[in-house]
């Protein structure tokens, strides 16, 4: 299917053919030492970003239990309505913060971003992610309150599953790019959504190509090149506004296998507390709150499938942790000093980013490698193992710990 937006945006690419060197996933196997694309031993990353506003608390716990039972990590978003399961100031929000799983905020109160910041501060919450319910532009002032990653419905993709894909060669990249549709973002008539067309038209022609490549394959990027404070991320919604009913289609085996094969990362947009008829538009889908019986065979098998892969292939984590890793991957700078019997690697990363799971890939015949964080003296206590994702290379890594859903 071709859209007007696709035709318009493609015109902004210019005549220069796309080349694989323009996209730069981490973990370049050609280098002696490089940041590994994902924590060891994983080869892809996935988060489910759930908007739980209006969800029955019992259903909220039941769906979380379905993840937890299978060893799947999932975070939660706080919000401002008192009846929401993770309302700002609620006991559950506090417990999830303590467990490191309160990773997002969704929606804004009547007073907008300023009031949101005040309420979050009063409750002692600094969720790193703004997960929609209002536009990125409306929520942008929350940067001052500590929120680092923003998204809204305008950045929801309907067809392409996963970003930061490791295309093997330019031909594969061009085939995927040819099939990609720039009109896939957002939903018709969505409120509180970034207007990508307006953004595109506001960008200088020389910057349009970078913007378009980010839309194509960057999981997170700076929306306007002139500022570094609008780090936005894309979510995969699927062709319909997401609900628990569409979860099994969002998590298709085929999608997950491709994510593993191409080493991608994906944030899945969800509303686990809703049910809706599949394939129908907003006026016909009969969206309603999910009941306790809503998690049926289709959903259970999808989670089983994901859990099986989550053992050592797809790292499934809370949204903020996935975004934090991708940000670290984007910003880390390695300085390498090679001696015949030992290599020293200094990793410079912004202080705000966690280093949990930090992993480097090195040639298997490299001597011992000391890794330090810039500004510190002591080498990190990294383990070294052959890298199952890259034959002929080893991985130096810190452990990545799974965060379990707390008993409330």
């Amino acid at each position, binding site marked *: *299917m*071709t859209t007007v937006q*696709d*035709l318009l945006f*493609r015109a902004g690419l210019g005549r220069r053919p796309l080349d694989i060197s323009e996209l730069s996933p981490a973990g370049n196997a050609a280098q002696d030492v490089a940041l590994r694309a994902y924590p060891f031993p994983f080869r892809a990353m996935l988060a489910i970003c759930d908007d739980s506003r209006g969800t029955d608390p019992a259903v909220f716990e039941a769906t979380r239990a379905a993840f937890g039972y299978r060893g799947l990590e999932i975070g939660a978003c706080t919000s401002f309505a008192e009846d929401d399961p993770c309302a700002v100031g609620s006991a559950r929000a506090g417990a999830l913060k303590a467990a490191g799983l309160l990773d997002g905020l969704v929606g804004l109160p009547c007073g907008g971003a300023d009031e949101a910041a005040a309420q979050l501060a009063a409750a002692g919450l600094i969720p790193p992610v703004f997960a929609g319910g209002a536009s990125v532009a409306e929520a942008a002032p929350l940067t001052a309150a500590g929120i680092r990653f923003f998204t809204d419905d305008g950045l929801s993709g309907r067809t392409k599953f996963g970003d930061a894909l490791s295309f093997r060669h330019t031909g594969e990249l061009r085939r995927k790019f*040819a*099939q990609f*549709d720039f009109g896939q973002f957002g939903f018709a008539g969505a409120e509180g959504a970034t207007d990508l067309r307006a953004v595109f038209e506001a960008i200088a022609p020389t910057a349009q190509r970078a913007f378009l490549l980010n839309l194509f394959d960057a999981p997170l990027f700076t929306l306007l090149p002139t500022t570094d404070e609008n780090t936005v991320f894309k979510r995969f919604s699927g*062709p*319909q506004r997401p609900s628990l*009913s569409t979860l*099994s*289609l969002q*998590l*298709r*085996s*085929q999608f997950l*296998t491709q994510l593993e094969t191409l080493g991608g990362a994906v944030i899945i947009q969800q509303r686990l507390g809703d049910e809706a*008829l*599949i*394939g*129908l*538009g907003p006026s*016909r889908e*009969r969206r309603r709150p999910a009941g306790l019986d809503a998690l049926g*065979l*289709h959903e259970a*098998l*999808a989670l*089983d*499938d994901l859990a099986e892969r989550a053992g050592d292939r797809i790292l499934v984590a809370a949204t903020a942790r996935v975004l934090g890793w991708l940000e670290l991957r984007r910003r880390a700078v390695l300085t390498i000093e090679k001696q015949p019997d030992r290599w020293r690697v200094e990793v410079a990363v912004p202080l705000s980013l966690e280093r949990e799971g930090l992993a480097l890939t090195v040639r298997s015949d490299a001597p011992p490698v000391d890794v330090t964080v810039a500004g510190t003296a002591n080498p990190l206590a990294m383990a070294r193992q052959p890298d199952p994702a890259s034959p002929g290379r080893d991985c130096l890594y810190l452990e990545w710990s799974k965060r379990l859903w707390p008993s409330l």
Partner: protein
Amino acid sequence: MAQPLTLGEIGGLPARALANLALDRAGAWHSDADVHLRAWPWPYRAGLALSNDCDSQSVDCLRNWHSFVNGKGATTYGDGLGLEVGDSFWVYGNGVEPALWKGNPFDAANADGYALGAIVALAQAGFLDTLHSFGNWTARLMPADRVGDPTLFARESILRGLDRLDALGLKPSVYVNHSGSPSNVGGPWGSYQRADNPAERLYALDALRAFGLRFYWPDACTDIEKFGNELRFDSTAELKRSIEQFAWEPWLRRKDTDGIPIAIDLPDDQAEIEAMFAAWHNRAIFPVRGGDGTLIHAFKRYRGIDQPVGSIFSSQVTEAKLARLEAQGGAVVIYQHFGVFGPRGRAPTISRHHRARSPIPALDRNSVATWQLIAERHQSGALFVATQGRLLDWIWRRSSLRLSVERTPTRWVVTLAGFACPVEGERPVEDRDLNGLALVIPADAPEVVVVRLGRTGVLPMHRAADGANHVVHMPWQPLEWFDVF
């Protein structure tokens, strides 16, 4: 034929061959004449048919969902929708599927298939218009003591089946390959298929064609992403993008005798290559050469990215896809197995453990809503819904009918001269061809009458406004469902 290409060489060929494809050759129904057949029976704007493979579908299961979709009475799903939706059957069947005979040809005896009376009645009425090949007649089911027997798959078994169809008064017009069946037709993609391979004892394409099987679905003719064909594109840029986005790979390869994928053979002529790729991209039916070199009509089915079982029907056919199909005036044939339940989105290795045969109820609430959506669009006059044989026949008719117009200031006489096409040759217009006949005429045309060449009398046409034009038409008479069970 041109020199064989490698898979690497052939991959980029369609985009190059179609680089200058004009919109009027891109597959949408088009005529430069001021009097021409309307794309669809009046007042419809697009067409849809269901192509339901009968695998694992018992007659009870068939009845369960067809009573709702086709019937008009109350059912457990709600009031019947009255749609003309067909189904398929087998000649030889070993399981629950509707079949004329119980067992495979190599079994000692073939008793009548169970529920034969209902199958015959539905097939005579036109609802069972599709042979899903001759059956699940595969080597893995052969008796142990006959392994290697070359007579197991023989033309005589097909001829016997055709005689049986004839004796029962059944005239299916559509032939759909069944998973791995030797009685499948391969066309340009042939490998294991034997029915069109003259080197095989099972060769019988000549007999299938002579019997009246007109439309063939070879395995390759499957749309995974593109919903619908005969789509109208508003600009060459839009057409070009659709060609770029099209999943060409399965169309460009076949397997050699060792099972190794190789590029298909291509014609020598560049214009032929362009026409072939253009048809594969956006025609619902198109001529291909069977393995014996004769021309047959192949047709495409839309599968989507999931295995086509009942539980994914609602994601195969969505409101957005139907809206787009109608806006582009296209046709779609939906590939399904309502006789199979499987979990949504799972790989075959996972779903096979959770498959259910002949689920009753066959439709989940999502599928019910999807059928209701289809019925609503049909009743509103937007979406033409017919059995796949009749939908394909309509598309064939509109590109094969030859007509002439005799004009006087007060009256235009349209003479339907007959049909002509490279696959079926020429034949006159018969009564059955008049169902839904609709001709677009200029709004300012005087009285328009329609006659058939060599026949007396004027056809009883109605005239109505149709956008900027007028249409003279006969009403489409759908098949009426009845309870034969």
